[in-house]
């Protein structure tokens, strides 16, 4: 009987945790665009940070062109470009929404850009190019 009560208490406790977490995540996402808008200064800082990552990819590409990178470098660059080619239109949209203070759409595009950055970083990492130590 004690075991049963413990199991019920544990399941209720765990169930409560999940619900609370989901709720807090939902609140966080909902309030992000209203309480914490993406300002032009924020967006510019994101661009500078992303530009640092692009610097490294550029160095790899240049080394590849000069024949000093690994034998698979051309295929590797092409694989990363499949993601980075989609960054530009997203950044253009993000700038437009930030400039017009359309925070809802800015947040949507921002999240897409963030997901793309995760893919670029993961692909680069798989190919042995380190774009930073942590994951988003």
């Amino acid at each position: 009987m004690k075991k049963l009560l413990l199991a019920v208490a544990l399941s209720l406790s765990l169930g409560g945790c999940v619900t609370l977490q989901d709720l807090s995540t939902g609140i966080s996402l909902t309030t992000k665009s209203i309480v914490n808008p993406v300002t032009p200064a924020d967006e510019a800082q994101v661009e500078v940070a992303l530009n640092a990552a692009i610097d490294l990819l550029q160095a790899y590409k240049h080394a590849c062109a000069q024949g000093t990178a690994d034998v698979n470098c051309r295929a590797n660059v092409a694989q990363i470009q499949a993601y980075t080619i989609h960054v530009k239109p997203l950044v253009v949209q993000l700038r437009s929404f930030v400039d017009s203070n359309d925070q809802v759409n800015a947040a949507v595009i921002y999240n897409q850009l963030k997901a793309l950055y995760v893919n670029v970083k993961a692909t680069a990492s798989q190919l042995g190019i380190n774009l930073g130590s942590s994951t988003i």
Partner: protein
Amino acid sequence: MNPEVLDLIIKGVESLPALVMAGIDIYNRVEQIKALAQGAKDGTLTSVDIAKVRADFDANLDDFNKPMT
């Protein structure tokens, strides 16, 4: 600042050590980050400053996205 935006900035800046390890000069990039952060903090960041950052990013990204010949 939006914590999500700050997180992305932090992750991007984390690539700086890798740039150093690859022998890339990061001075200009660090100066750019410092100037932006200071300008944002002081409220002195102008649309011209932001346009410059955007143009720099566009040029760098466009260059990387060019197919290798």
